[in-house]
């Protein structure tokens, strides 16, 4: 759990009481998301970028492409790397320095969604088999932390990838020559993360900061476009019952369809 600001006991109690009556302190229903705004192409220097606002939570994702070496077990595939920075300007609880366990977990959960759904056609990113491939760097930059960084980051990462362009190139005598013009990064799937908080033994979707401060446990379900689950992660020092988990999967199936429409315009 990402440490949140201090919440008074009165407020903690109020949040929990309201939820047991099926209401939330900010007026939402249990399975409502906050307002979502997505803007793509906000950083011209990056090959792809997006800025997502989920209520007051704000995340910027930049995608950079580089030419690098493939992994030896998959010599014909491009490489995906996801990193997250909890920048100190985003919250009084974020400190400068190398990524802590919260930042690492965030990056790895977003990574798992993209990787396991095979969202990027990595086979198309091979330049010289076994020697040179494209490396896709997805950098998550949290700008304002008001809860549910996982969903905001996953959404921003997907939006940035759909917006990513690859420079044209030609392979001449084992050398890669960059040519003018661009094409789109090949994508075949769109993973969407839906995160729940368990408060007072009930599930709510898209917890904001104060709800995260009182939640007993957290559960993220990532769904791909065919409605299959491609990644899950439980967080927080509490427990969930099998019934709650199955309920979360059901709600995530519905919610992920709604969220996908905001990013992928068919």
């Amino acid at each position, binding site marked *: 759990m990402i440490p949140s600001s201090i919440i008074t006991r009165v407020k903690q109690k109020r949040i929990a009481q309201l939820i047991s009556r099926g209401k939330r302190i900010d007026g939402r229903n249990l399975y409502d998301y906050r307002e979502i705004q997505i803007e793509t192409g906000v950083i011209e220097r990056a090959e792809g970028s997006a800025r997502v606002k989920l209520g007051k939570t704000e995340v910027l994702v930049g995608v950079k492409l580089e030419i690098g070496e493939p992994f030896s*077990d998959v010599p014909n595939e491009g490489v995906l790397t996801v990193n997250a920075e909890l920048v100190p300007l985003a919250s009084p609880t974020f400190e400068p320095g190398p*990524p802590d*366990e*919260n930042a*690492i*977990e965030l*990056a*790895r959960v977003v990574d*798992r969604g993209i*990787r*396991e*759904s095979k969202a990027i056609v990595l086979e198309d990113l091979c330049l010289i088999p076994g020697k040179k491939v494209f490396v896709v760097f997805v950098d998550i930059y949290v700008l304002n932390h008001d809860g549910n960084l996982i969903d905001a980051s996953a959404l921003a990462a997907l939006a940035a990838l759909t917006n990513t362009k690859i420079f044209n190139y030609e392979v001449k005598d084992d050398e890669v020559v960059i040519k003018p013009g661009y094409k789109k990064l090949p994508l075949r799937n769109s993973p969407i993360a839906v995160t729940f908080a368990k408060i007072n033994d009930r599930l709510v979707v898209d917890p904001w900061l104060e709800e995260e401060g009182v939640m007993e446990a957290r*559960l993220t379900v990532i769904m*791909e476009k065919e*409605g*299959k*689950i*491609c*990644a*899950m*992660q*439980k*967080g*927080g*020092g*509490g*427990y*969930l*019952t*099998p019934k709650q*988990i*199955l309920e979360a*999967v*059901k709600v995530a*199936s519905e919610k992920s369809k709604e969220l996908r429409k905001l990013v992928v315009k068919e």
Partner: protein
Amino acid sequence: MSKTPEKLINEKGLRLDGRKPDELRPVKIEVGVLSNADGSAYIEQGKSKILAAVYGPKEVHPRHLALPDRAVLRCRYHMAPFSVEQRKSPAPSRREMELSKVIREALEPAVFLEYYPRTSIDIFIEVLQADGGTRCAGITVASLALADAGVPMRDLVAACAAGKIDGKIVLDLTDTEDKNGEADLPVAMMPTAELITLLQMDGMLTTEEFEEALNVAVQGCKHIYEAQKEALKAKYIEIKEAVQE
């Protein structure tokens, strides 16, 4: 590098190591194996070999991390450089840092941390040899080390993974099955009340397959739980016999 097998399940419905889909690997557990630690345990699950030690409740270092109303639980999951095919750097990787976090969160619900304010309980999990399912076996063995240290707990935490290989839902994946399979679902729980304390998933599962896999994993955890209780009892039977002699 080991070769990728073509089939993970044969015509008879058996897996590469001859197991049935819902069968656990042989599990061997020993409690109280290290003399310096307040509590310790060792597990062999198939070829995975893991040692866990608990120190505490003890004074917190650095002091500012102490909590006024409860103990801090700290956990380090670490793999020995020789535990895997290609030597692993001993420096903690991002994977190990994530696993340390989720393992801590899997054990936390079981421990009465409020009994020991201003102290820390430190758990160290060392994977000596890895062949799949190390986070789960790590949780299984760490909860025994906690019990061995005399830390009051609501229940033991038992863990086991389910997954999908060759289109079938199976229990307790080996490394080869995990790498070549379609999905992996590690689960940890407090078995008495069936409360799930760790849940992760990667791969692809339909919601129906997920439900089936979750059930298989829960059954697996219950079998592990029996083995845990046996191992705990075995230690005290040994002590009793030694005293009587």
